[in-house]
């Protein structure tokens, strides 16, 4: 150990030299621009938050590596814990920090709904990367609010239509009791009823409930052809494994919440086989730049997967940086520029914001698990008839 005074002084001096060097460097460097990222970095949704944070960070790193950019970007990542009061706190923090010019916030809808007014009050433009509740953008027109993720209306419309075309008639809805699950159930019910199909029962349980066998026993009595699941991966895993334990053979219809490799690895490829999902983006490998993203994500050495919404965070971060390059780091100008985004290519498909700031061109895609992989329906052996979904009439 450097126990002596000399050691301490040495450290202090070298620190000063370093600081001076950094300053000298700064004289030639590009102007620094700060972008905020907000998502759940702790708590039970943190895999999504961390995946999104990593993806946004990757976008910034790649941009900074490009010598042609006008600015040097810095990502400020903050944890909203998926709680509205914490979200209000962190958004107030970034909004009152004038060095931050734009934000890429929120995975959870409850957090997003609580902060819409704060972004508006402080005139901080933002692009939501993952929260899917329709009211966030559609409750009222707020110029600062934009969203690249689709609302959950689209996926349910596509899903209900798809199930009707297969000839399924009886359904049971099983959702988590969060805002997400409840809205999922709402739109599932709406579109299923419009298609003249029958819903035999609806169940809602807290997302952290471990044992769902009591609910599933009741569902077994109802004997539906399809169990619709509206919730996130952890609960979806329990539903799928416990269905098996009770000998329930219904077809499982999922949604964006279970999209991702985590679901398949948690239930195992045998049980996951044949599970359906409707998600607002084609697979990365199909998108221009998608392979570039996944290759770089692996290369950057992140241990946590980007999860389903990582590419959305990547696209949103890239989008705001593109706008900054064009109009400069000014909140009002970025707000205006974001409002005009139309057919902008990205790894999640072209982005076009409507008057409410909602991306209206999400490419809702049908997926089915085949041999332990999410496969596009049209390319699967299920579509060709080689394999069959369960309970097909």
């Amino acid at each position, binding site marked *: 150990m450097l126990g002596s005074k000399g050691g301490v002084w040495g450290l202090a001096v070298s620190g000063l030299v370093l600081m001076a060097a950094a300053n000298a460097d700064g004289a030639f460097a590009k102007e620094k621009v700060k972008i905020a990222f907000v998502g759940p*970095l*702790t708590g039970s949704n*943190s895999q999504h*938050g*961390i995946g999104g*944070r990593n993806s946004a960070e990757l976008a910034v790193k790649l941009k900074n590596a490009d010598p042609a950019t006008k600015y040097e970007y810095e990502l400020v*990542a*903050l*944890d909203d*814990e*998926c*709680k*509205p*009061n914490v979200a*209000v*706190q*962190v958004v*107030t*923090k970034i*909004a*009152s*920090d004038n060095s931050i010019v734009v934000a890429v916030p929120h995975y959870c*809808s*409850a957090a997003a*709904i*609580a902060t819409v*007014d704060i972004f508006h009050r*402080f005139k901080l433009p933002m692009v939501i990367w993952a929260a899917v*509740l329709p009211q966030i953008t559609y409750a009222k027109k707020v110029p600062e609010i934009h969203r690249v993720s689709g609302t959950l209306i689209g996926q349910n419309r596509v899903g209900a239509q798809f199930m009707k075309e297969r000839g399924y008639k009886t359904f049971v809805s099983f959702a988590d*009791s*969060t*805002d997400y699950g*409840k809205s999922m159930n709402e739109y599932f019910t709406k579109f299923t009823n419009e298609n003249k199909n029958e819903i035999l029962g609806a169940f*809602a349980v*807290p997302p952290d409930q471990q044992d769902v066998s009591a609910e599933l026993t009741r569902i077994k009595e109802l004997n539906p052809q399809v169990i619709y699941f509206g919730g996130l991966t952890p609960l979806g895993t329990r539903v799928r494994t416990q269905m098996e334990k009770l000998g329930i053979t219904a077809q499982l219809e999922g949604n964006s919440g279970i999209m991702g490799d985590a679901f398949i690895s948690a239930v195992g490829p045998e049980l996951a086989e044949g599970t359906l999902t409707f998600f607002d983006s084609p697979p990365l490998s199909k998108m221009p730049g998608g392979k570039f993203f996944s290759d770089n994500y692996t290369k950057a050495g992140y241990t946590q997967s980007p999860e389903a919404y990582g590419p959305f965070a990547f696209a949103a971060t890239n989008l705001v940086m593109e706008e900054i390059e064009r109009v400069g780091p000014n909140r009002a100008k970025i707000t205006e520029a974001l409002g005009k985004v139309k057919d902008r290519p990205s790894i999640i498909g072209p982005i076009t914001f409507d008057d409410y700031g909602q991306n209206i061109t999400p490419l809702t895609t049908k997926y089915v698990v085949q041999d332990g992989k999410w496969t596009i329906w049209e390319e699967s052996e299920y579509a060709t008839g080689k394999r069959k979904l369960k309970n097909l009439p």
Partner: protein
Amino acid sequence: MTVTSMKGTAGQIVSSILVTALLVGSLVAVLEIEDQRALGICVAIIAGLSFLAPKLGILRGAEQAGAHHPWAVRLIILIGFCSLVLILKDNNFALLMIATILIYATVCLGITIQTGYAGLFNFAGAAFLGTGGYTAAMLANATWLPDIVTILLGGVIAAALGTVLILPVLRTRGHYAALTTLAFGVLFNGFLEANEMLGGPQGLKVPGIQIFGWDFSNDLVIGSLSFSFYANYVLLIGAIFALFMIFTRFIERSWIGIWLDAVRLDEIAVSVFGLRISVWKSFAFTAGNFLAGVMGAVYAKMTEFIAPANFTFGDSLLLVAIVLLGGIGNRWGVLVATMIVILLPEKLQFIQEYRLLLFACIIILLLMVRPAGLLARRVRVFEERH
């Protein structure tokens, strides 16, 4: 400066000015400094000063000043508070944090009355905070009702809801009592999540405060000075906090406080002396819940949004942690502990996903090193009141 020089009126007043300045200065420094290295140095200095203060007798001096010259001390605190608001006048975030600290500190005063004075555990603090908040949200459409009444109703309804628990709390002791409140807190949260009328898990919007045409969501303008709109809330919450500090002090120093102490320390002996234990326990429990409810209503109106996720078991735990860290039963300890518990996770944002882990470790460490809390409550000394 020596220990002796801090005795006498002048010494006491100087001490209280120093302590107030230390608190205000620390708050400003911690809230204004963003750079990690500067913040680290600053926290080290604050820790050093806090360590030094009791050694120089400053803390003791300030304490005695509070006992002998309460109004002088209150004036000093008022000046300190006003200068705090003045310094941070357009820093929205800093003012929001100060308002949050004062809200939690007030709620913890309530729990101090319950746990510190009457010896009742309350692991459902967040539930009573939530009751106040949801009351404010439900009354949002009743615009004819002045907001002051709404806020008070938040307290009344929280206190009323608490009466449901009085029977089990009175009949049980120790861990059994802890479980009743713990179970209540968990079931309250479950109820909010499941109940559609109360907005379900998505939560509800709550309008901001308006008192006699004074709209709290507009920036505050005094003369030529313009303050962030959060300054409105800081002033209101500061006033409520001061009121309840005085109320708690009154309870502690009156016969009620002595009875409560007696009830906590030896129930059997007290019942022999004919004191009605159940009455005083119920009083303490209800008073504490009232405080939580009032602040819940104000909190909801300030953040303009509430959801069940704000009122979980973890949040109740946070309240208990504050009371414990402050030193059970010490009012000023509550304020200091709240500052630490609220600001620490916020200032730990830079370590992102590791922050909850570090927070848990710091609390464990504090419990090991200072089991009696940062500022332990003094045993009653009756000679102090001349």
